[in-house]
């Protein structure tokens, strides 16, 4: 008994040696910063002078307005912009990814090349270079308008990027265009569906559409769910594209003011670090709630097969 305990202790100590870098990182670069930002979220702090405790004021300003300050309409607008971005771009992206994955699941000689080509937008899409390109694609004299006017004869085309009603949609298109990762995950999922399912249902006279709804969709539901949650979490944090396309302003008229862009502007533009920290915590809570809702609803929507 005693000897066993000694071995367990030695085993544990020996194992922790491997864990030390991660543990230091977790405490110093994740946990401590989280606690510190929670504290800062209850203060007014401009980084030059020590933080001043102001209680719930930062949170009040966001949603209701405090005694001293009116409600922050730009903040509420950034939530609205971000929600529209997330809940339009993610579903459209997943539908597109699944459709393409089904095309890519066909047995064709060049299929390897096709899969690689369809992944390229994802490979490059997160870069500043592509964001710069996007700005030119949708400018008033950009590529899209050049194509529309020279090939189709349209006139009086809008400057998509600098028009508040269209600017967000150019960013949604950019996000949907990067459908490569969910496509590859869907493809791997499609390849795991037993072929016999389709053969049996085809004997029973089911057509491709019926098969899609009766076999493909239910079999893929855990993967659809996984993709949805992961894409949602990352879409909430989008920054680079909105920053470059709007020139760092979130314009025109705050129409591309993503949540993280506003957080950046507040924290590092206006030096309102306390307010920015509060915004970070609100984002954390929103993401946590939405993830929890997704998991909860997955119980009814997702089938994990009868074997498990």
């Amino acid at each position, binding site marked *: 008994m005693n000897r066993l305990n000694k071995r367990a202790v030695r085993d544990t100590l020996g194992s922790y040696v491997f864990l030390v870098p*991660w543990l230091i990182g977790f405490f110093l670069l994740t946990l401590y910063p989280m606690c510190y930002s929670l504290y800062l979220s209850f203060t007014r702090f401009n980084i030059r002078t020590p933080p001043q405790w102001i209680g719930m004021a930062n949170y009040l300003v966001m949603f209701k307005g405090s005694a001293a300050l009116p409600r922050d309409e730009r903040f509420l607008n950034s939530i609205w912009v971000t929600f529209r971005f997330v809940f339009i771009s993610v579903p459209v992206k997943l539908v597109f990814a699944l459709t393409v994955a089904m095309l890519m699941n066909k047995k064709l000689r060049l299929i390897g090349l096709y899969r690689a080509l369809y992944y390229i937008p994802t490979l490059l899409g997160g870069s500043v270079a592509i964001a710069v390109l996007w700005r030119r694609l949708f400018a008033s004299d950009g590529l899209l308008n050049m194509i529309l006017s020279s090939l189709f004869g349209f006139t009086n085309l809008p400057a998509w990027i600098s028009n508040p009603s269209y600017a967000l949609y150019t960013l949604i298109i950019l996000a949907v265009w990067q459908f490569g990762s969910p496509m590859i995950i869907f493809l791997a999922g499609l390849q795991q569906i037993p072929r016999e399912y389709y053969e049996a249902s085809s004997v029973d006279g089911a057509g491709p559409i019926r098969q899609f709804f009766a076999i493909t969709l239910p079999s893929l539901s855990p993967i659809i769910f996984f993709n949805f949650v992961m894409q949602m979490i990352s879409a909430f944090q989008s920054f680079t594209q909105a920053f470059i396309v709007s*020139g760092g302003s979130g314009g025109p008229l705050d129409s591309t003011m993503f949540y993280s862009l506003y957080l950046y502007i507040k924290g590092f533009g206006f030096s309102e670090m306390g307010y920015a920290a509060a915004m970070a915590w609100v984002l*954390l809570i929103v993401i946590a709630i939405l993830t929890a809702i997704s998991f909860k609803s997955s119980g009814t929507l997702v089938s994990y097969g009868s074997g498990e």
Partner: protein
Amino acid sequence: MKRKRTGLVKRLLLNLFIIALGVGMLYPILWLIGASFKPSNQIFTEVSIWPSNPTLDNFKEGWRGIGIVGFDTFFKNSFFICIISAFANAIFCSLTAYAFARLKFVGKNVWFAVMMITLMLPSHVTTIPRYIMFRRMGWINTFLPIIVPKFFATDAFFIFLLVQFIRGLPRDMDESATIDGCSKAGIYTRIIMPLTVPALITTLLFTFLWTWDDFFNQLLYLTSPTKYTVPMGLRLFLDSSGMSMWGPMFAMSTLSLIPAFILFFSLQKYFVRGIATTGIKG
């Protein structure tokens, strides 16, 4: 006979459809590459990808950069940050992953759960305190705030990827090595590390590319042009240039995409593994 022919036609149409859709999707990128070889006055009048009178002027002018700092500096800085980050991340994530996947210790389940939670954590919660910490340490306008966290395996995504990979390896080899009196460090360096090379390559690859494109942290921490990376250099161009600079701007954008292209086409299967294993087995 007849059925065979309709199958052939079907397949041909399917191929054509996939190619047409693919070309449509890649058109903007191809146009960007083409535009970087066009004289500035033709960029915004030509829809076609192919430059009618190709020139290298844009590359020459762009490479000189803005002011005294050229794109050679930006590329050097980007490569430096990305290479160090990639290796540090691969080494330290794999040490952590080995502990989680193979070793027995008190508190393992708790720490593993903690690690999985950090996977979902939006980075914004730590952005501001980290900035304040690094500022106090005098690290602003150095590469340290970007590189140092990689030495502490802060990127849980890769720990998870490596844990999944190590769990898939057969255990007999490390069990017999243990019986032969091999230490944990010995098992890691002689057995686990060599067997996880494919997953380590995936980690190197993704860390390199994500660090290359990690505009947010570079924007926060790099403040003088001599320290700028490629994305920051492009942004500098964008801010300080009028219409006449689009040619050089496109040329440098094209250059900035080359490392990703090369890595992708030479190491394609590692990409698929990286995306698919974490997605499916999770």
